[in-house]
């Protein structure tokens, strides 16, 4: 099992519903976020391109945050999900320094927090909160080891990219372009 998220940038409108869904589902304190939306504009009027992306922890196969964690609080569970155990985290910040995506933050309670792919919802057979609320249905979630999953099929069919592949982290959040 290898969980992955596939996000269609051609459909995303940047409404940020995914962000609010995550904040409320995971009780993320106001002022913090586990996912966020970026806009990149290139070109000169009127020859322009615009890309909107909902970003989060990439749950990398080669996760630098897990490697540099001195206590093992950051670890990888079944399906390749990178999680943090709050009570094992000393708050040294090494994992935050190590993440090329700036996907982690220090929770006001001290430990380091980040996207869990809504692990608690997956266990109940539900989709991550962000995916479940997206009004444009531009987010897909599933198992890359299953060739018949929607995510596998989309990646087979559509042109896609990952973020900062040159960082060598082997991310598991894909963007259809």
């Amino acid at each position: 099992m290898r969980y992955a998220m596939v996000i269609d940038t051609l459909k995303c409108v940047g409404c940020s519903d995914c962000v609010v869904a995550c904040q409320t589902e995971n009780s993320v304190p106001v002022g913090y976020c586990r996912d966020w939306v970026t806009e990149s504009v290139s070109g000169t009027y009127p020859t322009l391109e615009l890309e909107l992306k909902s970003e989060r922890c990439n749950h990398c196969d080669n996760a630098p945050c897990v490697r540099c964690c001195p206590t093992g609080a950051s670890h990888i569970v079944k399906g390749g999900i990178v999680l943090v155990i709050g009570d094992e985290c000393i708050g040294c910040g090494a994992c935050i320094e190590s993440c090329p995506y700036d996907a982690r933050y220090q929770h006001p309670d001290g430990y380091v927090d980040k996207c869990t792919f809504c692990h608690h919802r997956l266990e109940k057979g539900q989709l991550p909160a962000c995916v479940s609320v997206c009004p444009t249905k531009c987010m897909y979630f599933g198992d890359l080891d299953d060739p018949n999953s929607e995510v596998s099929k989309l990646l087979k069919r559509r042109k896609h990219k990952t973020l900062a592949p040159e960082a060598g982290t082997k991310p598991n959040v894909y963007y259809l372009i």
Partner: protein
Amino acid sequence: MQQEEIFISGRNIPHIDPTLEIWHWPISLYLFLGGLGAGLLFFAAIITVLGKEEDYPTTVKYATIIPPIALSLGLLALVYDLTHPLYTWQLYTTIRLESPMSWGAWVLLVTTPLSFLWVFSYYSELFPKWKLKFNFLNNFEKLLKKNRKNMAYALIPLSIILGIYTGILLSAFNARPLWNNAILGPLFLTSGLSTGAATILLLAKTTKERHLFSKIDLLLIIIELGLIIHMIMSMAAGSEVQLEAMQLLIGGEFTLMFFGFVVILGLIVPAILEFTEIIGYKVPVAVPAILILIGGLVLRFVMVEAGQITRYLY
């Protein structure tokens, strides 16, 4: 071609946006004190192994009061910068070979007590007026004194690991292009040894000891300058993110600090002064020594702060 890259969901996380500020001054101080302690312990151990304790009393005896204090303060600084400090003990429930932070925690756990024991082995000589009141303490001091050479054998690798660790802690982060180069370990080790030598120079009472450490320090400064040139050259030949990182040092907000305080005042000027002293002119050694210590401290501050600004662009 215009480019715009913005967060539209209002992301503004404390200490992360717009630039990372996760590690603050305590970490810089910790890296400096760790390097200084490692340098002092290294020289004490080497002199002891070579059996030249009598010739260089400052190195093996007086200056070694500093490492236990430096390492303890360093550890305190580190814990001060943790955001979940009540869980610090979790560091010692596991050994994680891939995590420099884990290495550092364990090396310090061994080295810091050893540095205390080292000082204790010289207790009667260092503090002749304050006699130990308990017999078992006297016996313990005797035991340590006998095993001083064994401690020295252990301290040589430990201090080198500690010195390199202060650099590798930063260089292990691929995500921060300024840090992510192999030179940082040797550079911080050299700088640590150099600050150690400078401290001995500052405290040394005999011309012989002063001269030896002037020479050692001069050599270390030359190596350190070489490593800095090497670091900048490799960044100059690197990818876009590394070029941007380099720009911070050679043509950005850290240029004055880096070239002014680290390279010129912290390395070149003391090198000239020490060279002048070695060839026989009278130079107050305190001047180059203090400049080197300040330069070493500034180097840590510059690298820790500037490194956190650099990142991957995507």
